[in-house]
């Protein structure tokens, strides 16, 4: 049985459209609620269309701080993860050393370790290091899952570069670190962008570490939202904060589209 290409193309469009509708359904409800007044206010009825929830975000110092905290810890996390991951990815891609496969296995095991397993000791350790209730603590804790995945992604990108290029550079008298800096880095720029994006994506929305590490200070957006729940929850404000929290990611996702669609290969070790 053959299906004509036109019908096949039509099926594709229909499937994609249905999936997009499914993806957007809860988000549509969220956005609608964020623009409606859900608690009685002096100048608006319940259920009325309003921008009040969004103006409330900009006037509430705690919420403003939460946005700054979230951006800060994600940036710190990326700034730690990527420079640490690049040499490691290079080593896994190009060099063979005693225990390389076992080390990679250990890294992967840490990536898939659920945060809830390590919450208690990480809290104790970080209290002793003095990084609880600050953005540094969350940024460091999130390395647990971001670092292995970054090494994995970057390693695929480095493996895609022909080895002959390194060898030519060695003959010209370049050392390994200089080869990475001068030749490898420019060629994996889109890999670095993809890696940073994945770090952002897994880190921005994580809540288990964020919750235990910020009991008093340094609360990120997710915890600031939690704090809004109470006896009289202004659900419209909650939805507005959630909607606003998705904007940086959406912008980043759109900016990243060409890197993602240029394709990256996740390879072997």
């Amino acid at each position, binding site marked *: 049985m053959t299906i004509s290409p036109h019908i096949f193309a039509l099926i594709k469009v229909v499937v*994609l459209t249905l*999936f997009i509708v499914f*993806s957007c359904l809860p988000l549509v409800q969220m956005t609608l609620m964020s623009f409606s007044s859900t608690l009685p206010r002096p100048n608006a009825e319940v259920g009325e269309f309003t921008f009040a929830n969004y103006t409330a975000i900009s006037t509430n110092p705690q919420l403003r701080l939460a946005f700054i905290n979230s951006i800060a810890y994600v940036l710190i996390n990326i700034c730690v993860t990527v420079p640490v991951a690049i040499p490691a990815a290079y080593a896994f891609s190009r060099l063979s050393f005693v225990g390389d496969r076992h080390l990679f296995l250990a890294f992967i*095991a840490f990536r*898939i*370790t659920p945060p809830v*397993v390590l919450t208690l000791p990480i809290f104790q350790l970080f209290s002793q290091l003095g990084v609880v209730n600050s953005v540094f603590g969350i940024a460091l804790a999130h390395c647990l899952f971001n670092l292995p995945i970054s090494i994995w992604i970057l390693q695929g990108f480095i493996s895609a570069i022909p080895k002959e290029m390194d060898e030519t550079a060695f003959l010209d008298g370049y050392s390994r670190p200089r080869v990475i800096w001068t030749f490898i880095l420019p060629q994996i720029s889109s890999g670095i962008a993809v890696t940073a994006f994945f770090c952002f994506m897994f880190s*921005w929305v994580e809540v288990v570490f964020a919750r235990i590490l910020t009991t008093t200070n340094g609360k990120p957006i997710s915890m600031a939202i939690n704090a809004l729940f109470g006896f009289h929850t202004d659900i419209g404000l909650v939805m507005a904060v959630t909607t606003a929290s998705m904007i940086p990611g959406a912008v980043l996702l759109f900016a990243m589209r060409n890197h993602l669609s240029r*394709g990256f290969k996740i390879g072997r070790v």
Partner: protein
Amino acid sequence: MKARRNIGWLFVMPATIVLGLVGLIPLITVINYSFFEIFVLDARYWIGLEWYEEILGSGRFWASLGRSSLFSICILSIEIPLGIAIALCIPRNRMWVGIALAVVSLPLLVPWNMIPSLWLGLLNPQTGVLRYILPALGWPADWKASVPHTWAVLIVMDVWHWTALVTILCYSALTTIPTSHYQAAAIDRASPWQVFRFIQLPMLRHVLLMAVLLRFMDSFMIYTEVFPINAGGPGGATTFLAVDLGEDIKAFNYGPSAARSVIYFLIVLTVAWLFSRAQGKLDSTENEGAA
């Protein structure tokens, strides 16, 4: 063949130090705690393997393990094929790629603690967007009392949340296929299924292995999203492994929660090992194909 040089350790040293700090040290602490009876952290005494015997000898652990396994099987059997299908449906046109990828991935950007709230809001019989459609589909207002309905909500919610990750990974692997492969297939009059089976699927294998690993483990240990939906109920029917552990930690049962953590980490280690075996096998079949 890679050059066999231990200089490689120098390059992985920074990563090893960071992961040693946030991964290995906490893990050793947990292993240590799991052998003690602890009232406060300063006063504890050695009880050996007692916690392990208690946990492994209880029906509760095995029931949760069974529930988590069933949940992961459901999630993988839906999300992986669906993720591939959506990746195949994404248009080749440059502008639409960006828009389709961005819109499909939006659920990945929602803070995890808000995901159950969004779905509970959607199902709310007074204010939810679905309030007119749901009764027509036979969806009961008191769905929280029903095991199949609660499971359905959790599965649909997870599919909504994570299918996009599979899609992104697959899509980017698909774009590495050279157009000449498709042209050759067109000359041979290959059917869409044959194109998928012999050109696209082989390219997806490595990425799919990663997607399966991430989705398996994250659904097996699902925690944040489950509890607010129905508090592990009705009657414990959605109490998964991580929910059990979370309850222990909240009750400050240091010893039992540490022993439970160690058991879970052993599961993680087994999965990681199976995964690396699978990866090794994939490489050797590919090398044979190339030779």
